[in-house]
């Protein structure tokens, strides 16, 4: 069975043509307009074929309650977050279902600080929505829509200022990029070519939103990029997701190094060349990051899964870098959100300054095997399953911050409900393939037994 609408900390997400309708989008926009007060609201979207429909509904909804929509157009999610803060807007709405398949779309809500709504803020918004009482303004109070000129400029300027442009340009890198027919198809080639001085080979670079590869930048989806890297003898392959917040890397042989290692390499470069300080990652980010931080005598703090939990903790403690295991790299000095453009710039800078290849940089990192699985589950089944898992591992070191995290020393198991889909995620990491498989099988067996 499929639950076609999901309302949660990652926004409102649904299948267009089923539960996600123009009326629903307008109604949530009205609720968000009331939540922010009658200010300006930045609206941006990814390339999905349903994006324009949602955008028009959001514009109408916001205007009807007295907000002024500022249109960013088709831009990366990190750009929408950046613009919200940079333009002093009251809020922002990102129209993107991120890594979900093309039939999905979503509204993600941004606060005036340029960060996604915190859980308590999202609760207030949903409370307003559920009351369904949106006092609309009269005609003379309506505010006109405005378009943001050069919406990418400020964000990318900031990325370029953060890294050493000279070093990167001197590297004269030849790179390949897989834009996933998303926002990168418009913005990544100009960025890499004109701002980073690279010779660029791009694939899936038509911005039509009918993703020609599965949208998650995980190794099994990146064969075409691997081929491009080899064919043109590129130094690195960059794989983006449709809304440009996550990044996976391929080495010079066209081999994916695993999207969880993007964070490790980016953190390594931040600590080496930019700033020493604390690092924040979610619970299921690879232990590799602990080693990278330890080399520079820095700490890693762990949070629940969800971008906002990571960025909120980073702002709270003044962390220098952080992110998620899914290829989301966050550098607060640029902007406190996951950003594939920051990640690409940091990786190019790392290559330039170290003079080393991705494969050799990868070889420095300790070997861990990370396995991610998912099991479809009805919302009503989840609590029982999680209870069964907890009972089974009672005697181990448990952390119940976000689902169940079992720490076995050099290996771990993390089982949690997805924030975005009706599935249970099972993540395991261990130093060897055999060990990780054993752990995962054991976990699956417990779950399947409790589902019977």
């Amino acid at each position, binding site marked *: 069975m499929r639950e076609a609408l999901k309302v949660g900390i990652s926004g409102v997400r649904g299948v267009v043509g089923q539960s996600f*309708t*123009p*009326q629903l989008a307008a109604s949530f926009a*009205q609720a968000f307009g009331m939540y922010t007060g009658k200010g300006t609201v930045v609206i941006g979207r990814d390339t999905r074929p349903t994006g324009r429909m949602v955008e028009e*509904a959001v514009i109408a909804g916001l*205007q*009807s309650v007295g907000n002024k929509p500022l249109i960013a157009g088709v831009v990366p999610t990190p750009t929408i977050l950046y613009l919200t803060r940079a333009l002093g807007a009251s809020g922002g709405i990102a129209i993107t279902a991120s890594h979900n398949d093309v039939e999905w779309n979503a509204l993600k809500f941004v606060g005036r600080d340029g960060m996604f709504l915190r859980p308590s803020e999202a609760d207030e918004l949903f409370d307003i929505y559920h009351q369904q009482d949106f006092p*609309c303004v009269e005609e003379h109070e309506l505010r006109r829509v405005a378009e943001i000129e050069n919406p990418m400029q400020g964000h990318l300027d900031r990325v370029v200022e953060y890294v050493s442009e000279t070093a990167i340009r001197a590297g004269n890198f030849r790179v390949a990029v897989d834009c996933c027919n998303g926002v990168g198809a418009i913005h990544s080639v100009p960025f890499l070519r004109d701002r980073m001085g690279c010779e660029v080979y791009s694939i899936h670079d038509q911005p039509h939103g009918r993703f020609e590869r599965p949208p998650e930048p995980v190794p099994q989806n990146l064969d075409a990029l691997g081929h491009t890297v080899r064919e043109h003898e590129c130094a690195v392959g960059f794989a983006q997701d449709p809304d440009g917040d996550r990044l996976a890397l391929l080495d010079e042989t066209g081999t994916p190094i695993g999207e969880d290692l993007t964070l490790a390499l980016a953190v390594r470069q931040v600590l080496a060349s930019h700033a020493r300080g604390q690092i924040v990652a979610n619970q299921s980010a690879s232990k590799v990051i602990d080693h990278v931080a330890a080399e520079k005598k820095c700490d890693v703090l762990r949070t629940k899964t969800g971008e906002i939990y990571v960025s909120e903790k980073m702002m709270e403690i003044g962390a220098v870098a952080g992110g998620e295991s899914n290829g989301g790299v966050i550098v607060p000095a640029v902007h406190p959100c996951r950003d594939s453009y920051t990640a690409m710039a940091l990786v190019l800078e790392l290559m330039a300054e170290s003079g080393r290849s991705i494969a050799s940089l990868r070889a420095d990192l300790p070997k861990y095997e990370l396995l991610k699985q998912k099991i479809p589950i009805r919302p009503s089944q989840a609590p029982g399953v999680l209870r069964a898992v907890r009972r089974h591992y009672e005697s181990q070191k448990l952390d119940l911050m976000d689902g169940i995290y079992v720490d076995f020393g050099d290996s771990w198991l993390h089982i949690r409900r997805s924030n975005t889909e009706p599935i249970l995620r099972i993540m395991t990491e261990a130093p060897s393939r055999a060990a990780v498989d054993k752990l995962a099988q054991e976990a699956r067996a417990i779950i399947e037994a409790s589902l019977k």
Partner: protein
Amino acid sequence: MKTLRVSSFGLRGHVGTSLTVPAVQDYAAAFAASIEGGRVLLGRDTRYSSPMIASAVKSSLIGSGCEVLDFGVCPTPVLQFCTARHAAEGALSISAGHMGMGWNAITLIGGDGAFLDTNSGEAVLDLFHSGDFRKATFKNQGCLSACTDYFGAYLDRLCEVVESEEIRKKEYTVLIDPVGGAGCAFLKPFADRFGLKLVAVNAEPSGYLAREPEPRPRSAQHLASFIKHVDGDIGFVLNSDVARVSIVTEEGEQASEEYSFAVVTDHVLQRRPGVVVTNSCTSRMVDDVASRHRAQLVKTRVGQSYIVAKLTDEDGVLGGEGSGSAVLPSFSLGFDCFLMMAMILESMAHSGRMASELLRALPKYHIIKHRRPCDAHAAYHAMDSIADRLSEWADGVKESSDGVRIDWEDGWVHVRPSQTEQLIRIISESTDRDRAERRAEDIAKLVDQEL
């Protein structure tokens, strides 16, 4: 006073209270479902709320799988003209026409360019009420493209219908007041095509209504005040979607809007005899003009949709209303003031008469119009008792689905609830001004008592 008016060809209401984004989305979705997600033209006027309503409409149309051609700010008659020529299933015009600030409306147009016919309109209403919409997935999602280059083709055709060369030679100085509405940006190309020296007032497409948007003698005051000083040959006062017009003569006379259709009727019948269609409360000038040309005059209820439906049935040559509108089926199936202006100028050029002379050639009547604010439900109720009271009051009372009418030798009165606004309208006409006024006053008092 803020009730939503839902009809088979339109949705009308007060922005923010009754004409809300969800209502607009549902209505547009119902229309899209009725045409199974085909090609749709979208136009709007310049009102402050029109862009918002356009966004709500676009979301529903695209989300229902329609191919949307966005005409941006476009007068309703131009959109109607283009609908038939763009192989569209229909069109949707966002315009409050003659209504005041704070109001707006959606009008549905069929594939032939006429306001949606009753059968199709009822299908839309059924879908609207049942909420049985067409939800497109990413696979059959609609699309949106901007359409800007259409007025040239419109003018090309207009120049086939009227003799533009004859008008050009006269080099008329023409004053036009589009009340800051949808017509603003189209005046210059129109004037250029007919070789007119254009003096435009209230021609910033701001959506701000500098005067009452209904073309009436009193809304022509500004234009009339200086027409002599600029040696104007004629002045035209438009409503905000270019569907109604009244005339100001070169002498500065603010003519009743009733003259507009009468002048056009006289001009058309001179060249092409045939059936003319108008409503039951249009000036007797039109009856007289028709009989002068031995033409048959057919009467319908008030409203563009009724006029055009009858015109099509009767295969008539011209339709129109005393409120200042006309439709020429050989050109398009919409009330159109560009067409009317061109035909009035053609009439002047052809006859060599000044505007004042054109009006003087028509039989002289005095027409008095009153209106009384009144909720829709109260209006229907009140109309029943008004009809009873009137039958005590005078002979020859005729009741119909469209109000009550009394005829005398020298004139008539008509009382009816407005279809578009929360009003009861009272119209009185007579050869004698005092008598027309007295009857209108008497009936207004009667209406006041009933309310």
